[in-house]
């Protein structure tokens, strides 16, 4: 049986936080209570064009006394197309439809000595809630026992890359968790000058990589490079994917990626079998062509 619900939500806040990057808070009664770090939900405006909902990762749930159940569901979005452009026009009190929580989330991560979170651009959004649970600052979902931190915050690192300093969003939120944060920008305006995967590769060479679990979220070329780096160095790697999705809950079979099977490859739905996958299970490129 499915564990998600659909609800209409009032917008509580919606404001820019970085270049083309906004954060929106929703008065959610159903999704906010259930969602776990690494899960996502679908957001849709009540109109026929654009027609479909779009998936957004949980950023955080915050205490919000004026909300129906005293909780606000927050997501952070990059303006990339028509729907995200329309989202920026919403004001507090406006309504939209959401359904969730969806996907497996970070509960599927295996235990490890160290946990390294690697974010590319808007791929940073799933990691805040995970860090909050690790520090004990927040508990997510209906079963608080699942929220027991599996890593002391001292064994957690985060690498966050963006195209320039102007695109780095919500740094204060991440810093406040106490995580050791390393930044990278393509133009060198802050931190390492170049792809975020390169400082990860360099750091993995300095430690016993077999004790490190690397978790990546970001653009596909970055994730591919990250998986290669981890394989070369001997670190385990999990990736949180995003693919074109029509429904988000397993009905449409659109969002598939190619995974290795005993006799070659098969497709799996990112929305129900992911979005978090063991990188070793994925066929490179995800299209299945490499596996045929």
């Amino acid at each position, binding site marked *: *049986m*499915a*564990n*998600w*619900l*659909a609800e209409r939500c009032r917008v509580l806040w919606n404001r820019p936080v970085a270049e083309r990057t906004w954060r929106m808070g929703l008065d959610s009664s159903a999704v906010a209570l259930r969602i776990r770090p690494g899960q996502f939900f679908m957001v*849709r405006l009540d109109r*026929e*064009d*654009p*027609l*479909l*909902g779009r998936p957004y990762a949980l950023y955080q749930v915050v205490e919000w006394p004026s909300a129906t159940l005293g909780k606000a569901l927050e997501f952070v979005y990059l303006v990339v197309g028509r729907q995200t452009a329309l989202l920026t026009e919403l004001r507090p009190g406006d309504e939209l*439809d959401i*359904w969730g929580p969806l996907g497996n989330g970070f509960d599927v991560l295996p235990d490890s000595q160290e946990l390294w979170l690697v974010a590319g651009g808007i791929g940073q959004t799933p990691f805040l809630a995970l860090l909050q649970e690790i520090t004990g600052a927040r508990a997510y979902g209906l079963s608080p026992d699942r929220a027991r931190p599996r890593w002391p915050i001292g064994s957690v690192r985060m690498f966050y890359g963006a195209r320039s300093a102007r695109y780095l969003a919500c740094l204060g939120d991440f810093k406040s968790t106490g995580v050791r944060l390393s930044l990278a920008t393509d133009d060198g305006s802050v931190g390492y000058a170049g792809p975020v995967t390169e400082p990860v590769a360099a750091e993995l060479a300095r430690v016993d990589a077999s004790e490190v679990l690397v978790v990546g979220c970001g653009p596909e070329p970055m994730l591919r490079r990250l998986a290669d780096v981890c394989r070369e160095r001997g670190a385990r790697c999990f990736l949180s994917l995003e*693919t*074109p999705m*029509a*429904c988000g*809950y*397993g*009905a*449409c*079979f*659109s*969002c*598939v*990626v*190619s995974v290795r099977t005993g006799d070659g*490859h*098969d*497709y799996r739905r990112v929305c*129900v079998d992911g979005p978090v996958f063991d990188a070793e299970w994925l066929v490179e490129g*995800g*299209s*299945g*062509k490499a596996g045929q």
Partner: protein
Amino acid sequence: MSQADITLEVAIGTLKLQNPILLASGTCGYVHEMVGAVEVEQLGGVIPKTVTLHPRKGNPPPRTVETPCGLLNSIGLDNDGIDHFIEHHLPALRGLRTNVIVNVAGKSVAEFAELCRRLDGQTGVAAIELNLSCPNVSGGIDYAIDPACTREVVSACRGSTRLPLIAKLTPNVTDPRPIAVAAVEAGADAISLINTVLGLAVDWRRRKPRLGAGLGGLSGPAIKPIALRCVWQVARAVDCPVIGIGGIRTIDDVMEFLVAGARAVQIGTANFFDPTVGPRLVGQLRGALESIGARTVAEVVGTLRL
């Protein structure tokens, strides 16, 4: 008259539905994906994703692309085959407390007949819908573009099962009427239409189709006028129930299809962007019937005046 005097029951041949709202094949997965969030027991029935004789991996992604007021898809009948369906999905579907209509597609007449034979002895199967019209199966044949092929397939299926047979037809033809007539003459108990409209989305900078498989099938509100036209044409041409499909997302859409000649409707793409739409439309149907003084669905069916 009050809403309590209104009955929503409809009959599709020997199949009795508590109301005419069904969920279309390919738009509700195997239904367990939505149970808990969607009150499927409120529906007239559900039609799980197409089952084929052998497992199919489906088409390479991207499998869907959004177009104005529509969705272009090329999933490619990704499914694990009839054995897996009967073993793993059917037991869960039997527990749903609504009608389960199983949609099948074969690559040959013999495969269609075999699929029907396999389902014939299964409890919990209310009817079989024949997917004669999926546009996304490479190497396969779209049987429902030709009356003779349609007749041959439906006839073979009729000989393989006593379950009600619904022939699902394509709009990708000059005239759907001769094909519908052939299906009914060969033993179909009902006609459902339309399947998706064949289309193409282009990424002109890369000079490539936006879908991994190239062509795809268009669905959603964009195709509703085409679907209404096909339903109206076919309902006047055949002497059996017609089930309308294509862009339905509101109670007005449902009523339009009933008036055009549909005795039941299937909700398709709307399940993707409005997952609880089906039960909501069931709840709104009595009010819509009452507003025009109708006591039954049948009173409204095919009342379009030109």
